[in-house]
């Protein structure tokens, strides 16, 4: 029994760590750069599939068909998954980052998801169609020879290290002139351009970084679960990640982490603890999504900046308002 509980909590920890990667990535694309990437979950899937076919051997039988099959190990598969997602993100970005209204952009990007989903589901030879990739070897599985029930304790440090790196990167971006420029383009692209910002390049970079994050999250997902199929990346997943970020606080790395905690762990796992009605197995999933929907509406209404709002940074100021007398200089031209 204690082992079961430990196992359950450890699995939760993995889900949380992976979800943080997702919200942190979306925080750069949407939170900082303001790009409505409603195809976000697609890039998670691309990362997962490419990491999967990087690890798997070449497919050799009907019913188990996929491209590549490179037989590589961790962390190369993760890098390949992330790179594939990043490249796709860049290409879609080139297509989509135009000056069109955000709702039109949302339509284009949802259309991207739809096409990707339909192609993946229907072209069996790509990633094994509706059934998806299965039996993907886990990192260090063979080398360590751990009991499958204990594998989760191997994976936690892997996911934690990856998240630590990505969190640091996101943190640096948030506090950098680059991040400030992204936020300026989010507020007003015309004005940012009028002050010399290369807005298209900035937005493309933000889109690509976000997709890289999504790709890493996908790679981690398939490495942990050993499987990935189209059912795992329905469009509603994108809505839920957006909800998590908005609830936690967009534009703030800690907000992104808090959103992952509140939505992925508290709501999604919390509703999972509800008693199941035998005749209505779908009620739990429905309750969970209804709660998420209500929560995001409530947050947008009562606290639109999210629980942890974007940081209002003070530059080089002592905490106490110290007397500052050396400010006569005004350099004009």
């Amino acid at each position, binding site marked *: 029994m204690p082992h079961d509980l430990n196992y359950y909590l450890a699995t939760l920890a993995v889900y949380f760590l992976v979800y943080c990667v997702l919200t942190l990535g979306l925080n750069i694309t949407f939170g900082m750069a303001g790009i409505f990437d409603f195809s976000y979950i697609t890039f998670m899937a691309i990362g997962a599939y490419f990491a999967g076919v990087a690890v798997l051997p070449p497919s050799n039988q009907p019913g188990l068909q996929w491209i590549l099959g490179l037989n590589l190990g961790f962390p190369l598969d993760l890098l390949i998954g992330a790179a594939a997602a990043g490249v796709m993100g860049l290409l879609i970005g080139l297509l*989509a980052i135009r000056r*069109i209204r955000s*709702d039109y952009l949302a*339509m284009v990007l949802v259309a991207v998801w739809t096409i990707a989903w339909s192609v993946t589901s229907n072209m069996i030879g790509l990633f094994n169609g509706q059934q998806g990739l299965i039996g993907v070897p886990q990192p260090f599985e063979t080398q360590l020879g751990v009991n499958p029930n204990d594998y989760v304790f191997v994976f936690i440090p892997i996911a934690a290290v990856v998240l630590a790196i990505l969190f640091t990167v996101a943190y640096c971006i948030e506090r950098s002139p680059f991040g400030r420029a992204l936020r300026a383009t989010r507020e007003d692209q015309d004005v940012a351009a009028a002050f010399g910002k290369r807005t298209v390049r900035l937005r493309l970079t933000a889109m690509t970084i976000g997709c890289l994050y999504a790709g890493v999250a996908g790679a981690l997902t398939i490495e942990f679960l050993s499987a990935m199929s189209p059912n795992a990346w329905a469009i509603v997943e994108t809505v839920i990640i957006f*909800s998590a970020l*908005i609830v936690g606080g967009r534009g703030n790395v800690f907000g992104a982490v808090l959103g992952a905690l509140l939505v992925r762990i508290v709501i999604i796992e919390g509703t999972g603890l509800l008693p199941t009605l035998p005749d209505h197995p779908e009620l739990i999933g*429905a309750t969970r*999504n209804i709660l998420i*929907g209500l929560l995001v509406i409530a947050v947008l209404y009562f606290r639109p900046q999210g629980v942890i709002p974007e940081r209002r940074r003070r530059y080089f100021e002592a905490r106490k308002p110290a007397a500052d007398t050396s400010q006569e200089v005004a350099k004009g031209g």
Partner: protein
Amino acid sequence: MELFLNSIGFGLVTASILALAAVGLTLQFGMTNYVNFAYGDFMTLGAYLTWTLNVGLGWPFWPALFVGALLMAIPVLFISQFVLEPFTRRSGPTFHILIVTFAVSLILSNLILAIWGGDFQNYNVGTDTPINLGPFILSVQQLGIIALAVTCMVAIHLLLTRTKLGKAMRAISDDKNLAAVTGIDTRRITTIVWVLSGMLAGLAGGVLALNVASFDPNVGVTFLFVIFAAVVFGGIGRPYGAMAGALVIGLVVEVSAVFIPSAYKLDVAFLVLMGVLLVRPAGLMSLFERG
């Protein structure tokens, strides 16, 4: 050749469903100037209300459809007045309202799932006899769908051109502020159009479910982006553009199924949608207009 002609027949049916849905969506956009991403779930709700009347209470299909569409007024009024309206009144960033419509979609689709369950359902319509009409073979029900769409389009045309309400709608769609200044009660008209939009969604959802024979809670959402394609093709916010877009997209989708695997036929619509939005967001119809 026979296949091709037949696909045109199906195309006309799809176009009819699309037209009902697209006009409802575009009229609402004209009033509020934002896209309602929950519209697909409005359609699903209409399909299930009709199902309850038809199968649950044993009504014939068509009366059930009309009453189901009328009932749509209640949830749509609630959503537009108590959920969306507070955000539009506050005029925060545009993405707020967009996210809210996505959240409404999440809530509505899962309420439908909770109430009606996730199983596939059918209407109780009895067996249907195919009829040969020149080159086309269509069922009586499909002819009914076409007749309904044509009737509704004519009614909408008359509404827009012959009534005070329609003229006010066009004025708001052209320039909301100007319309308000000239004494039009924009709030009231917008509310009426929400109801109209919800009813059209209800009709469209019902006939869509009828046409696909068996349906589940995803029926509306899978069709939503085909509707977007039709709406955008004709220029969003323009009812006549939506009608034309519905005709073109409906035909393109069904005819393309002759040449490519039919699993991809909806993707053709999405390609059109992306192409139009990226090349000419004002809609292809705007190429044919002056000024």
